[in-house]
């Protein structure tokens, strides 16, 4: 199967004309025809005839040229509807494309379509969507995770070579873990947010998802970098992420923060990550299991004040007057988050909630800095449980919030985190782990993830569809 190849391998085959971009598209179309309607991955498909015509004219001059990809439906695309998973933007066609979309299209990638998500990013299961839940390809009684469930399910079933997700509180890492694929939450500001439908502006990050760390590095090299249209995008130069990716991690210190492995974490997941720790030791890393991150206790509270507050502001523009449908089209869960945010920002409550959360944020950032003075990476679980059953999270807001417990602090601090598969439960559900690093340490994270994937096969596994 062509799609089992890495981007580097596909590039070589495309360049030497062993295969054509049309061949890649046709393989994607086959997989989409087979599995999309059952799993409910796509919201909008690009016209196939147009794609094949574009493929014929595409020059293969970069690693992403001729490569089919998918976008979480949170990215504005000129000419193709953008819904953010909500009826408020049903059939909405944006007059411009997001910066990262322009960069990917300029590099010659071929957009297959827009995929399902929790509306506006509000969720961890792709159930808070007006387009029906996306099912987990490994067990269709369970969710694909969220909010970037569509991309994760598409990649697990080989419907595309890569995708772009969005991570505000874990929305790339959670579905990557539950669907058995790789994903990167970038440093805040590493990738332009211009043209992405905002959830929480101080937390939102745009990041690649693919079936290997190597591919993530190739994609990031194209989408990262300062954008004059996004004042929060970083002027830090973009390294060539692939060039040193195979240098290994001898002597690097991996911290295992105690609080992330205590009660609440499924013991099977704990054991599986324990095996991964042994692999990292065999690769030459040193382990520090004395690292402590007590702020884990406050992470959910801080995030569930900051994010709803910021979303209540960002979603105020959807008035149904200038474009889109009216506000009665927001789901119950979205209206809940908007109202929590409105309340936390309202007169008399602002200091106790939003300001307090901003102060807690300063403490969380400080705590991560202290941890990184002792270690190079932090290895943590992504989720406390494997993929949940349909209906489990969406009906229980507190359970829903707590499911983000291991991922929200990352966004609060703005640091990057690499999510990679590390095993399966006895019942065949994927388990992922995340490697967190200091700001702008993506190149180092890639080295660690790449080294792990050279000696393990979890990222090659494929569900039976």
């Amino acid at each position, binding site marked *: 199967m062509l799609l089992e190849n890495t981007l580097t391998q596909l590039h070589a085959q495309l360049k030497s004309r062993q295969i054509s971009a049309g061949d890649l598209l046709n393989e994607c179309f086959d997989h989409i025809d087979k599995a999309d309607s059952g799993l409910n991955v796509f919201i909008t498909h690009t016209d196939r005839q147009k794609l094949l015509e574009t493929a014929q004219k595409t020059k293969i001059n970069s690693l992403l040229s001729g490569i089919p990809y998918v976008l979480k439906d949170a990215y504005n695309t*000129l000419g193709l509807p953008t819904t953010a998973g909500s009826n408020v933007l049903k059939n909405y066609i944006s*007059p*411009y*494309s997001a910066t990262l979309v*322009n960069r990917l299209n300029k590099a010659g990638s071929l957009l297959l379509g827009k995929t399902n998500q929790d509306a506006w990013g509000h969720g961890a299961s792709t159930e808070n969507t007006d387009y029906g839940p996306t099912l987990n390809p490994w067990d269709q009684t369970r969710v694909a995770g969220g909010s970037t469930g569509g991309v994760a399910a598409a990649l697990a079933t080989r419907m595309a070579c890569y995708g772009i997700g969005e991570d505000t509180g874990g929305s790339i890492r959670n579905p990557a873990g539950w669907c058995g694929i790789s994903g990167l939450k970038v440093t*805040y*500001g590493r990738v332009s947010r211009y043209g992405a439908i905002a959830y929480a502006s*101080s937390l939102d990050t745009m990041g690649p998802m693919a079936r290997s760390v190597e591919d993530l590095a190739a994609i990031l090299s194209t989408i990262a970098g300062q954008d*004059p*249209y996004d*004042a*929060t995008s*970083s*002027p830090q130069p973009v390294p060539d992420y692939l060039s040193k990716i195979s240098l290994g991690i001898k002597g690097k210190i991996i911290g295992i923060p105690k609080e992330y492995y205590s009660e609440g974490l499924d013991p099977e997941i704990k054991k599986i990550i324990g095996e991964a720790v042994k692999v990292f030791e065999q690769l030459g890393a040193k382990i520090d299991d004395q690292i402590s991150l007590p702020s884990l*206790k*406050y992470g*959910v*509270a*801080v995030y*569930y*004040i900051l994010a709803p507050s910021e979303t*209540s502001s960002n979603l*105020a523009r959807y*008035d149904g007057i200038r474009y889109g449908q009216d*506000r*009665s089209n*927001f789901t*119950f869960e979205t*209206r*809940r988050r*908007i*109202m*929590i945010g*409105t*309340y936390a920002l*309202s007169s008399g409550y602002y200091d*106790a*909630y939003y*300001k*307090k*959360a*901003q*102060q*807690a*944020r*300063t*403490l969380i*950032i400080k705590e991560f800095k202290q941890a990184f003075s002792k270690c190079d990476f932090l290895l943590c679980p992504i989720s406390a449980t494997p993929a949940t059953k349909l209906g489990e999270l969406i009906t229980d*807001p*507190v359970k829903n*919030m*707590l499911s983000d417990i291991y991922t929200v602090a990352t966004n609060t*601090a*703005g640091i990057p985190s690499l999510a990679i598969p590390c095993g399966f439960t006895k019942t065949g559900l994927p388990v992922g782990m995340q490697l967190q690093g200091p*700001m702008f340490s993506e190149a180092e994270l890639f080295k660690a993830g790449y080294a792990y994937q050279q000696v393990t096969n979890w990222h090659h596994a494929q569900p039976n569809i």
Partner: protein
Amino acid sequence: MDVAYVAKLANLPLNPGEEAKFQKQFEETLKTIAVINELDTLGIEPTSQVTGLVNIVRQDVVDPSRILPPPKSNNGYFTVPSIFDAS
């Protein structure tokens, strides 16, 4: 929390029966969030964004290649569907 009041502030409609459901969920949510009061934040500066960037500006120039062509116009005015009945 006064659900009806907050819904009004947020310009969100409430369907019949939802107010009670929201009320219950808000109570549970606020209880979960209340743990933040245990943190000693006396004298701690709030962080509103993590980039450390300040006063980032750019040239005020439009890139016409990135947007759709403008709507139909007639003599400097945009042409739009009629609002009033022709009769």
